[in-house]
């Protein structure tokens, strides 16, 4: 049951969700040098928006309703994130670095409590996927795992293509390397910052939906733990570093799955995640892939 390969796959499934969320932390940090603590609430909002869409469209066949849920969830998150940046972070651009950090915690509290006022208990996330098990050689995968792994791969690949080859993606990298120089060469830095929040939140929102599809229920504070873990993953990979966030997420997911299977108590897996965070901060504060210090996006 807890065979090594299966745990590895479970870990990669969870890890790819962490990686998607970690990318949002890392993209924003790359440009603003700020940890967007409200990002875990974006994850939660994605789950709620996705849930709402699925319930509303439950009459449709699942590929359609799930597709619509992703579209709605990602778009809603992106818009909320862009608005939150304009309202809570942009006015603090020239303030000391602690100010936007505290503002982010404020946004997090506001978003979480807005949902709390509406629903303070667990909500069942619609079960859309048939519980099909698929055997690939000796390995058994559920359909939902394949969906999670596949869509994370597509999203991460898309992000990589975007920042590597498109004009806007290159401008994002330019801004993360030198914001002032970017403004001087004619890049509208504030718009690039909005774009960064937009993209990071799209990934975070998609992650929220994938996570809820996997675990089957949602709640106003559901973002906290995965958010902290994704943040750990971003630090693990070297915060500000895009491939680092992807690798850090997968690594954290796998170590957590292994921890749950092989540690004396499954609950120790959370301890493991944060022990990793502390160890990285002590031993290698730049993260595993952070040696090229100025590579931030």
């Amino acid at each position, binding site marked *: 049951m807890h065979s090594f390969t299966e745990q590895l796959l479970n870990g990669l499934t969870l890890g790819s969700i962490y990686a998607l969320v970690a990318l949002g932390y890392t993209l924003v940090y790359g440009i603003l040098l700020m940890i967007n603590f409200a990002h875990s609430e974006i994850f939660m909002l994605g789950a709620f928006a996705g849930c709402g869409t699925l319930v509303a469209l439950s009459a449709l066949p699942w590929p359609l309703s799930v597709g619509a849920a992703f579209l709605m969830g990602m778009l809603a998150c992106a818009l909320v994130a862009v608005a939150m940046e304009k309202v809570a972070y942009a006015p603090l651009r020239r303030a000391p670095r602690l100010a936007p950090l505290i503002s982010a915690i404020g946004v997090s509290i506001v978003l979480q409590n807005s949902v709390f006022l509406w629903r303070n208990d667990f909500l069942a996330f619609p079960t859309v996927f048939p519980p099909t098990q698929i055997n690939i050689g000796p390995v058994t995968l559920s359909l939902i795992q394949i969906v999670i792994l596949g869509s994370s791969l597509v999203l991460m690949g898309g992000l990589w293509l975007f920042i590597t080859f498109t004009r806007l993606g290159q401008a994002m990298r330019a801004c993360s390397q030198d914001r002032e*120089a970017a*403004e*001087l060469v004619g*890049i*509208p830095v*504030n718009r690039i910052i909005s774009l960064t929040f937009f993209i990071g939140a799209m990934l975070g929102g998609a992650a929220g939906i994938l996570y809820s599809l996997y675990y089957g229920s949602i709640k106003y504070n559901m973002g906290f733990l995965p958010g902290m873990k994704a943040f750990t993953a971003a630090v693990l990979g070297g915060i500000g570093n895009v491939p680092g966030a992807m690798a850090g997420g997968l690594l954290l997911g796998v170590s957590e799955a292994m921890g749950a299977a092989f540690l004396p108590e499954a609950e120790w897996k959370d301890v493991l995640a944060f022990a990793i965070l502390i160890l990285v901060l002590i031993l290698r504060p730049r993260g595993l892939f952070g040696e090229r210090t*100025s590579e931030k996006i």
Partner: protein
Amino acid sequence: MLEVNNLSVSYGKITALHGVSLRVGRGEIVTLIGANGAGKSTFLKAISGLLAPSEGEIYFEGKRINGLPGHAITKRGLVQIPEGRRIFPLLTVEENLMMGAFFRRDRGGITEDKRLVYESFPLLHERRKQLGGTLSGGEQQMLALGRALMSRPKLLALDEPSMGLAPIVAQQVLRIIQKINREGVTILLVEQNARAALGIAQRGYVMETGSVVMHDQAKNLLANDKVKQSYLGIQETLLT
């Protein structure tokens, strides 16, 4: 082309510029000289929109530009190469150049300008796939110039372009700046190497502790005793 009236800039309670007025005519090379900390870089940052002036006006081609964000000023043709060149170290040479054309939409013109830049700086073409950060100081200055040219500047403001370069390379950079000027780009040159700057400029302004204390034809400034003593002194002693 550029007219700055009574410009003041403060950092918190410290005033870095006190009522600076300066004019650059179309086609000129104008230099701004002065000691370290005299306010030259602050002045350039203010006209490029990176710092908000507390007082005064900046007109570029007859239109007021203070208050505009930096990227909008670049788009209008006032392009600055900042101190230290500030190329993007982890973008390739070609990506760096393309960032200079970020706001442009004329694909044909961009391709043509890129070809011209590579023609003027064959070395950049050779290294186009290399990361900007791997270039030497002189090569980075060429890249910064190329990147600025990709923005089709009408006025190019340069902050200490020869800083940190070997004398021969610095000479070469100044010659390139003259060539760019001959091709129709107005130049505002900030330099610590006053002799070299006044050598290629038509007019010069001298700044001291945030104010313009002198402005004149470059050749008059080169002959001026006070300028000689304060800014050309080192070279003078070296010559005797």
